[in-house]
């Protein structure tokens, strides 16, 4: 039965980016139709919607349509014309594969339960001072990780 929707509770951004990575061609581009097929989505649009959000947050970018000379093409209203292909940005790649150093991860692993509240407070302060994209992606990751459906509640 094809999937009719793909919310953050159904699939994390990280999982989605990894599926995108699996489907990318030699140049690093992935067609939204391929993602839709891989995830058994009812329509390409469902994949495109998630991709559009990820593009808004800087995790992916969409390919421009270009003329034979390689110049971007524009609509009559002066907007860029796009194809249906997308690729992961450096930020998206960091989200999918991680950039923590082993030492940093060990430090975090060593935090005791009682100290987690302090860590959470530090993290929220740090996120507030970060850029919008990071804030949004972290908020989504938190929402996915703590969603009721994933924790048997």
């Amino acid at each position, binding site marked *: *039965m*094809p999937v009719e929707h793909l919310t953050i509770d159904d*699939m*994390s951004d*990280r*999982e989605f980016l*990894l*599926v995108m990575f*699996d489907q990318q061609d030699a140049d690093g581009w992935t067609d939204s139709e391929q993602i839709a*097929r*891989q*995830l*058994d989505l009812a329509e390409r649009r469902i994949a495109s919607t998630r991709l559009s959000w990820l593009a808004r947050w800087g995790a992916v970018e969409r390919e421009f349509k270009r003329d034979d000379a390689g110049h971007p093409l524009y609509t009559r209203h002066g907007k860029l014309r796009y194809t249906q292909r997308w690729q992961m940005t450096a930020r998206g790649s960091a989200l*999918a*594969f*991680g*950039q*923590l*150093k*082993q*030492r*940093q*991860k060990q430090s975090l692993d060593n935090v005791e339960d009682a100290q987690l509240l302090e860590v959470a407070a530090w993290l929220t302060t740090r996120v507030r001072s970060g850029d919008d994209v990071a804030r949004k992606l972290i908020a989504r990751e938190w929402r996915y*990780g703590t969603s009721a459906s*994933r*924790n048997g509640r």
Partner: protein
Amino acid sequence: MDRDNGAEPDRLALIVEDLQAELARGAGAVEAAQAALAEAKAKQLRIRRAIDTLTGVKAKAASRPAKKGDWVIGEDKVQRVQALIATKSEPVTSRELATEIGISNDSVRRALELLRERDLVGYRGVRGRGGAKLYMAMPELTNAG
């Protein structure tokens, strides 16, 4: 009553009257039975409370029949699934893992969902349209640094 159905109006009216009286008697019987049932239930409740008071032990409530989806998978099986999927370089289905480990497909699916909740395994789509779900170990969030 009209005359088209061939019945005499007076006779039909009598039949309807009889049936209405029968219905009223039936309603009374139903009411009486309901009252008796309620009384019997209340009596049972009183007896149960009396037993609880005298024995100091709460009478065992009728246990809910176990639903098929209620069981929880053992951590040892989860660990085995995690260890096996970590060795795979391509996404795999639960059935493939189940065959290799030698446990049921249902157990492996539960283990995979649990590992997914822990962000140790990721969903990687399906094999073909409407095919089996594919899973793969999530990459470590660390680099070699």
